């Protein structure tokens, strides 16, 4: 139950292609996160899967069945909305049982299911309240409960955590993962928050301009982004990009940049103009000169709790690097020496933006 297949899915509104020839399979029981900046079409895609918006071409299949012309209420899905969209005039109980009443279930069955979901989400104490009398976290749990109560195999979550404060967001993120693992349902979770995506997903589908640009595990999305866009979108602070030219000299393959020669581990697929991508943690930072190290000046120190990041300038190029923990943190104005880790360096074709 709950396997989703998209085949050449397209949606145009006027001249604008909101969804552009999407192909994707979400396996049964998987938690897939749709990640992308606002306006990339991720919420529209979710609505297309739910049947809340028409599509211009292609197919949506749920459990192998073409959903064309199938009403949203009959697709076997539950959905959680960013604004919660609880029915304001109904109590929590009323919200939870609305779908079951529409489905014409017997009274006893409805009560049993509602009580089970309420217990699972710790809503027992507030069943008689109206949504306006609930806290943000409680409203969100009712919204999730309303999606769960139908026992649908597929759960669609449209930025469900974006209206909550940071702490509650972390709690509920863990709760969603726990619910997923406990119920075994397929979930498609939309977000623009890459931390949320990395922490939650089995796989992440990154969207850009109505297209899916990469579908992979969080680990691979972070370590091996297919394109410059994905590399830049994932990671905070963001990846450092340095333009350069691939060359081969006596010491082997390297990239010539304004920062100097940066050695590579192995031969790249092709020579030419590249963007060299290095994440902040892919530098060793030292206050003493080291052979081959890049000399840089510290502009700003950003302590983020567990890690401290240095904003530095080297050869007119701004970089962000992670300071090694357990060492003295340099002060602004100090000189540091950066040694990039060649094994971690990512090379992107300067023309196409694709990883080489």
């Amino acid at each position: 139950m709950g396997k989703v297949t998209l085949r050449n899915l397209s949606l145009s509104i006027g001249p604008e292609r909101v969804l552009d020839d999407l192909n994707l399979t979400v396996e049964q029981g998987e938690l897939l996160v749709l990640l992308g900046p606002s306006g990339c079409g991720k919420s529209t895609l979710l609505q297309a899967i739910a049947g809340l918006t028409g599509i211009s071409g292609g197919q949506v299949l749920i459990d192998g069945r073409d959903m064309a012309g199938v009403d949203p209420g009959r697709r076997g899905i539950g959905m959680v909305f960013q604004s919660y969209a609880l029915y304001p005039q109904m109590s929590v109980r009323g919200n939870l049982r609305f779908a079951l009443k529409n489905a014409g279930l017997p009274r006893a069955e409805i009560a049993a299911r509602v009580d089970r979901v309420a217990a699972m989400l710790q809503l027992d104490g507030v069943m008689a309240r109206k949504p306006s009398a609930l806290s943000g976290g409680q409203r969100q749990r009712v919204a999730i409960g309303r999606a769960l109560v139908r026992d649908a195999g597929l759960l669609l979550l449209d930025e469900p955590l974006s209206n909550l404060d940071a702490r509650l967001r972390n709690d509920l993120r863990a709760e969603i993962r726990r619910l997923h693992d406990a119920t075994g349902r397929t979930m498609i979770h939309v977000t623009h928050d890459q931390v949320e995506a990395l922490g939650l997903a089995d796989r992440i589908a990154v969207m850009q301009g109505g297209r899916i640009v990469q579908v992979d595990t969080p680990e691979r999305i972070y370590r091996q982004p297919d394109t410059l866009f994905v590399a830049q979108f994932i990671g905070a602070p963001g990846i450092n990009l340095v333009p350069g030219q691939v060359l081969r000299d006596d010491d082997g393959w390297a990239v010539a940049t304004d920062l100097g020669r940066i050695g590579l581990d192995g031969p790249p697929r092709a020579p030419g103009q590249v963007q060299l991508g290095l994440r902040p943690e892919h530098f060793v930072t030292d206050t003493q000169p080291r052979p081959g190290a890049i000399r840089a000046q510290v502009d700003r120190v950003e302590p983020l709790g567990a890690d401290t990041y240095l904003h530095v300038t080297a050869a007119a190029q701004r970089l962000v690097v992670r300071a090694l923990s357990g060492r003295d943190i340099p002060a602004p104005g100090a000189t540091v020496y950066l040694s990039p880790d060649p094994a971690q360096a990512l090379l992107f074709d300067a023309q196409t933006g694709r990883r080489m």
Partner: protein
Amino acid sequence: MIIVEHPESHAGRGWRLGRVVVHVTLAVVCLFYLLPLYVMVVTALKPMAEIRAGHLLALPAAPTLAPWAAAWSTACTGLSCDGLAPGFWNSVRILVPSVLLSVAIASLNGYVLAFWRMRGSQVLFAVLIFGAFIPYQVLLYPMVMLLRGLGIYGDLTGLVLVHVLLGLPILTLLFRNFFAGLPPDLIHAARIDGAGFWGVFLRVLMPLSAPVCAVALMLQVTGIWNDFLFGIVFARPETYPMTVQLNNIVNATQGVRLYNVDMAATLLTGLVPLMVYVVAGRLFLRGLLSGAVRG
């Protein structure tokens, strides 16, 4: 002295003289607004002799309810001398079905227009705006022909039909704007929960529509009760609504004018909308101020 900052205290802190001036000005203006009501009431309570003595503003020396009884049951229109009562009952029989039908139909129309957009709905929207402002004079004669064709010209049913049809544009736009202002996800959630066309409308939307329904009811009750034009065009003497009956009593009588009876009749006609206003005006204002009309 410590002045506690109220979040909305942009208006008048301190500056006592200014606040007195504001209140006095408002009070004087309100007296002007209340003056006609006061004059009507005292006139309707005076015997004719007292009125002829002048002193429009004087309180009645010997208050009497006789003019009210006359206005209700015996005042003459030039055709008959049955007072306002027949007009009152005609107005009630026009009002109730017209209001209920027009609100029911308009809310359904507004719902379809707001959520189920389809080809031509933009054109229909434009036609409705046009219909909300059209001078009824260009519709009068074709409407007469329509009612004649249906065999209900001059009947109360015909008047109900006219009120329902011509009230639809503004009410439909009112409901459409209210519904269009609701979060679309609410409708999406209901659709996912398996509610169909009627489920969304009756179970999710209508229970949320109290403010806009109050505005619609208020508009229709006062609008239909106060109508004069349709009454005079589409009714016949036996089916005249109260306003037409009132105008005939006051303006179409020959001979000596009984000002106290006239004013009692006028007050009686104004009583229904005034009562509605007193009872439901709060709801109406809340709906109005909450933006139900502004969309």
